[in-house]
């Protein structure tokens, strides 16, 4: 593994001063208030058209034929019965006979028919003959020294050992050492809108409606896969039903309809069903860590020695950051990727971080007990130095007060009765800075404003950020501003991923809006008997800074443009956004020791995110991250049958997800740091909750549960082991 090449931080430009986020004190601020999302009415009324809702005249429906086997060679594919079935218009071979399928759900072929049920019926009539091959359904199986060769470059791949400091000296300095193995499990993204697209050709021009995290990225990938010019592809995604990292790749559900629609001369739609979505649309890799760590008598971390492994499925890696955040001056880490025959991992909300966070935070709580320190104290002693992007110490102290940490009992609830309570904490960090964004702003003479940006809305509220930023900058009323996103014909923007979308596009929108505003000032200044630079905009008016009573209402000002609109463009520049967020979370749980059932009662999430653009939307991101992580901690768990490698819960019945009654009180504290500019927070809030919950369970029971999810059988087994080891009744 290679270190990333550090690059110089770009220097702020002239625009960064000219259009800095600062707001004159003499007018109302839009940014940072709670503006309801502009497309809320469309979403609550069902008017919002997702890719899944798109219907085109003459549209056909494609359905994949998928391998039921975890590993097999395709011997033959017989389409004859499928071709004869009602409504069938075409078939496609995705993998040729002689090649191998590597996991259950791997695509072999596809059919297209007039209706979706016909396509589903016909796909079942495609007869595929397989030669079944050896496979692995678990990491342990693939790691056996005498395992058959299933993956040609090795069933496992060891990374380079990374070592910092002097491990032997670190352990020599330790008053206590701990050896333990921790693990987290595989979960799938479960986007409610499954992966889907509609592809339609007009001559050599392809229009693709895609449920995607990146309209421009999809355009590039589709063109690459089809070997056509990027200029001939247009990707549209007005609304999308969740991605969580899995919708960056242009995969079979896009390329199959693109190819079939070309061949068949009709638009083709392909929508995965829930089972396909679980099997073949990505997952979060598993993580195992066998750790030996040392701590000094006064609670300073001295040494960390970790051997880690995990699987990202059939040939993909599973690395994760470790140790996480806390400073071990002497450390060693050796990681091995293990390949098994399942669907491939894809980035999933904060890739790697929830795993590394779990291992490290669990370890820290155990070390704190060895030393006899409050776990919060141990953390405070071992954090990196405080910096604007590393405020954990301050947040821990603040959160402890708000959460009532002083009511936390020492490890093991001694109260009588079967229901035990506990508290836990955990920290997170994330980069959250982006640089890919361009925007176009047009002020029309009638006062209406068009803001365009080729980003897309993953659910974070991107569309709303356009009028919030433009409204703030232009001083125009929000309802005069129309936002256009989700179309690759709009100015370039990067994918909504890595929490980079907002920091990527917000500077571009700010600059384009600022330029448009300056152009407007130049055109209306004479009407206010002022020089352009003496003007300001806000609260729906253009006014003279020194004499605000000399003003023009927004529409009156725009009327002065005559017939000529103002247009302006902007691109990301440094100085409006930055990287790195820090956050902490507190969790309180009850554990029923007679059933093993964990209930989360309260979560406190403190998160910084630089400049808060829209408080309502930013808070929603934190709620969502917390609940996603609660699901990771307790409920969701991709379960494979060990004998056959077949997934047992590719549905939403046995693949458990929290419902209303399972969701606790969640208090969100957003730390507004406007001086840092915009930073994305889609990911960091989902890093910490699971480990805070697991630490709270440990605090309740007096015994750690080192594997997720915290299923009752694990909780009861831990209680039993503790009791049997003389730990007394938990």
């Amino acid at each position, binding site marked *: 593994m290679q270190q990333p090449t550090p690059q110089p931080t770009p220097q702020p430009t002239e625009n960064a001063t000219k259009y800095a986020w600062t707001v004159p004190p003499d007018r109302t601020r839009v940014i940072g208030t709670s503006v309801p999302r502009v497309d809320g009415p469309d979403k609550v009324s*069902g008017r919002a058209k997702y890719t899944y809702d798109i219907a085109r005249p003459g549209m056909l429906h494609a359905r994949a034929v998928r391998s039921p086997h975890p590993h097999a060679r395709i011997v033959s594919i017989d389409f004859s019965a499928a071709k004869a079935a009602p409504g069938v218009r075409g078939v496609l071979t995705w993998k040729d006979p002689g090649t191998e399928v590597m996991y259950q759900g791997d695509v072999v072929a596809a059919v297209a028919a007039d209706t979706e049920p016909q396509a589903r019926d016909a796909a079942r009539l495609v007869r595929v003959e397989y030669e079944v091959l050896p496979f692995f359904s678990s990491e342990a*199986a693939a790691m056996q020294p005498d395992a058959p060769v299933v993956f040609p470059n090795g069933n496992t791949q060891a990374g380079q050992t990374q070592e910092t400091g002097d491990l032997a000296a670190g352990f020599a300095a330790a008053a206590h050492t701990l050896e333990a193995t921790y693990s987290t499990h595989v979960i799938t993204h479960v986007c409610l809108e499954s992966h889907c697209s509609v592809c339609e050709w007009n001559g050599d021009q392809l229009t693709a409606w895609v449920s995607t995290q990146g309209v421009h990225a999809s355009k590039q990938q589709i063109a690459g896969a089809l070997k056509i010019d990027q200029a001939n592809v247009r990707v549209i995604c007005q609304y999308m039903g969740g991605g969580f990292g899995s919708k960056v790749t242009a995969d079979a559900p896009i390329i199959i309809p693109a190819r079939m629609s070309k061949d068949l001369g009709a638009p083709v739609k392909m929508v995965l069903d829930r089972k396909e979505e679980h099997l073949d649309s990505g997952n979060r890799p598993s993580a195992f860590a066998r750790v030996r760590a040392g701590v000094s008598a006064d609670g300073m971390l001295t040494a960390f020695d970790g051997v880690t492994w995990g699987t990202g499925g059939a040939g993909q890696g599973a690395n994760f950051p470790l140790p996480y955040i806390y400073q071990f001056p002497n450390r060693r880490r050796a990681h091995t990727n293990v390949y098994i025959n399942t669907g491939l991992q894809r980035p999933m909300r904060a890739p790697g971080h929830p795993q590394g966070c779990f291992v490290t935070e669990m370890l820290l709580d155990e070390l704190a007990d060895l030393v006899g320190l409050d776990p919060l104290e141990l953390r405070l002693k071992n954090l990196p130095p405080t910096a604007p992007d590393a405020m954990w110490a301050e947040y821990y102290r603040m959160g402890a007060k708000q959460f009532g940490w002083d009511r936390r009992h020492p490890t093991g609830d001694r109260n009588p009765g079967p229901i035990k309570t506990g508290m836990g904490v955990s920290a997170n960090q994330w980069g959250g800075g982006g640089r890919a964004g361009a925007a176009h702003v047009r002020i029309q003479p009638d006062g209406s404003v068009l803001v365009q940006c080729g980003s897309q809305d993953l659910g974070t509220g991107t569309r709303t950020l356009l009028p919030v930023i433009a409204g703030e900058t232009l001083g125009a009323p929000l309802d005069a501003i129309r936002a256009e996103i989700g179309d690759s014909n709009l100015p370039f923007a990067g994918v909504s991923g890595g929490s980079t979308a907002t920091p990527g596009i917000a500077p571009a929108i700010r600059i384009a809006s600022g330029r448009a505003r300056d152009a407007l000032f130049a055109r209306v200044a004479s009407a206010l008997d002022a020089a352009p630079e003496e003007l300001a905009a806000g609260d729906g008016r253009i006014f003279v800074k020194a004499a605000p009573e000399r003003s023009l209402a927004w529409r009156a000002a725009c009327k002065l443009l005559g017939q000529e609109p103002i247009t302006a463009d902007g691109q990301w520049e440094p100085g409006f956004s930055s990287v790195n967020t820090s956050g902490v979370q507190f969790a309180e749980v009850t554990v029923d020791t007679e059933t093993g059932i964990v209930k989360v009662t309260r979560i406190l999430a403190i998160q910084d995110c630089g400049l808060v653009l829209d408080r309502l939307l930013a808070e929603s991101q934190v709620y969502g991250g917390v609940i996603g992580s609660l699901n990771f901690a307790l409920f969701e768990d991709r379960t494979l049958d060990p004998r*056959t490698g077949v997934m047992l819960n590719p549905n939403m019945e046995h693949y458990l997800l929290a419902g209303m009654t399972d969701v606790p009180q969640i208090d969100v504290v957003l730390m507004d740091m406007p001086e840092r500019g915009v930073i994305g927070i889609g990911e960091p809030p989902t890093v910490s909750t699971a480990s805070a919950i697991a630490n709270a369970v440990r605090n309740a029971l007096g015994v750690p549960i080192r594997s997720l999810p915290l299923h009752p059988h694990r909780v009861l087994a831990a209680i039993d082991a503790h009791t049997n080891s003389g730990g007394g009744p938990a």
Partner: protein
Amino acid sequence: MAQNDDPAGTVSRRDFIKTVGATSVAAGVLAPAAPVTAQGPAALGPGPVPVNLTINGRARTLQIEPRVTLLDAVRDHANLTGNKRVCDRGTCGACTMIVDGRTVYSCSTLAIDVQGSRIRTVDGLANGDDLHPVQEAFCAADGMMCGFCTPGFVMATVALLEKYPKPTIAQARRELDGNVCRCGTFNRVFEAALSAGGVNRG
């Protein structure tokens, strides 16, 4: 972690993996069915038959197969695409419609089986641009993110408030327990449910 102690592939292939397609009969292949008994009602289908539905107050006749679910009939044949298909197995609630005053999973209801019922979908809730109070409350509280579960949650909340205009916390949680959100909007959906005003008993 399960140990794969079984040498790969030794599970008998007779047990595992039914030959795909062996038992399938595609739509329309079956001959039209004859009446079942001399006195009983005739069997309809399996091919398309006229199905009469009253959706959002409007009567429609759709030519559909008996196997078509209410959800697919409304979406694909009546072109009302507000409610979504997510799990398609009656577990997630995105397809929630109100039939004769009560919430149902429209993915797990046959369209042909609810003829004569009053069917309400999210598409019929607003009056033009005038949103239903529940919809207003969802917007104000940001009770949505990606919005894909939202139509189902809105319908479940409408039914909740028509049943209990002033719900207790327990009633609200319970009546909304049949819906799942993956983005994690629960707290704000809940806020919306408790703050929505002006909903009459349906």
